[in-house]
């Protein structure tokens, strides 16, 4: 057995070490706001005012098991979207608003049931939780087709769509939402889907911001400090391109 790809191992370990160090030394650093956190809770209120359900769609978010970086993105959305689902369920339970979720990932479907049930319990109205409103779809097509039908049928009042949708198909749901005048809060995992969100959403957050939602939903300074550590990595990558590139171009490296 041999150790391979040690350069990547070094990058991975040093990134995590740097973020761990940041978590202790960058506490209290000011972060920019992420629009979707407040807007998602507001979406529940908007739906309540309309007397309509609120849709929480996470699409592809969930477990996948093949070796490529793309799968890490759908997995990374799991904790943040579950925390958001819980916070929205708490508000929906308080306001007695129907919250319908849509996912195409079996493990995520079970996890969201657990989080949403807890959210309703925290609202003081556990009886308002209905497991039939946590809807699993076997594939992306069934998710889009069924949600479009539901949006037209139930005249959904607002939608929070934070997750992944294959081949920009999120815009098919956006168009249905626009036809019933629903508010849209969006944050997509993948860049091409995010372009569609930029075209249609009332509130938009970028992929990495969505992973950070959990840090914004807590008063704990440590998660925020870790986010600050991300900036150091980004700064380093920028330096690699500019200064490393210059040295490469000059033939020094």
């Amino acid at each position, binding site marked *: 057995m041999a150790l391979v790809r040690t350069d990547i191992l070094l990058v991975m370990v040093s990134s995590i070490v740097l973020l761990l160090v940041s978590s202790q030394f960058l506490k209290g650093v000011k972060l920019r706001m992420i629009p979707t956190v407040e807007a998602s809770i507001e979406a529940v209120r908007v739906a309540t005012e309309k007397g309509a359900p609120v849709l929480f769609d996470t699409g592809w978010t969930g477990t996948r098991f093949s070796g490529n*970086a793309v799968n890490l993105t759908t997995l*990374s959305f799991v904790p943040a979207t579950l925390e958001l689902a819980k916070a929205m369920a708490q508000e929906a339970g308080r306001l007695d608003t129907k919250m319908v979720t849509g996912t195409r990932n*079996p493990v995520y479907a*079970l996890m969201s049931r657990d989080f949403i049930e807890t959210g309703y319990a925290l609202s003081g109205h556990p009886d308002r939780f209905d497991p039939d409103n946590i809807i*699993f779809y076997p594939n992306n097509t069934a998710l889009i087709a069924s949600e479009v039908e539901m949006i037209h049928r139930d005249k959904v009042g607002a939608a929070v769509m934070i997750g992944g949708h294959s*081949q920009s198909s999120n815009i098919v749901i956006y168009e249905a939402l626009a036809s019933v005048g629903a508010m849209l809060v969006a944050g997509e*995992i993948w860049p091409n889907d995010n372009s569609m969100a930029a075209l249609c959403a009332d509130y938009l957050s970028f992929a990495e911001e969505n*992973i950070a939602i*959990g840090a914004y939903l807590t008063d704990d300074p440590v998660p925020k400090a870790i986010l600050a550590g991300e900036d150091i990595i980004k700064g380093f990558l920028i330096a690699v391109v500019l200064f490393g590139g210059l040295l490469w171009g000059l033939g020094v490296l």
Partner: protein
Amino acid sequence: MANIPMILGLIVLFLISSLYFMSPGWGPALYIRNSITLSMPFPAAIVVVMLVRKHVNNILKNSESIPYDIIVIAGVVVMSILGFTGGIDNATFKILNENINIIGTMSITSAIAISVFSPMIRIYRAKTPTMALLIGLSCLAYATYTPLGQMIHPVIPQLGDFVQTYIAGASDSAFWISTYIGAMALITKMILLKEKLAPG
């Protein structure tokens, strides 16, 4: 005590990650990875049963959607009978999959086009410099990716191609990479037990 599942999860996470750096992979890590992936039919089957249960409940509640609930349940039942009796290579099972699922996927994917044209016509107004630029870039893209640009002047598709090849590609990378860095930060939060993956 509440943190034990997360600590166990983290140990497993780094155990599995080590496979990337080992050649060949080592037994315990492979065994855990394979056991988890092999168990995935359980949650999938559970959620499909829950989906059927939801539609049965609709029928019991005498909802207005009864005919459609019956179609959903019938779809699951028919496919199950065909698949379990004739195997997944059963001809009717395959035909239903190809002519409902696969074509349905293409239909929904194709609907993206209509869903883009419609808001473009509704929303694209040069109310701000950003929107003006977006409209200008959209015109350039339409001219580049259709024969129109070449018919007007060859420099148009050349410009559009340059923009897509050298700017759009870099933007795409930046988007992905910032997400990957976000994922690394998430795992750091998990190490510090600031992310628990269970409601509490």
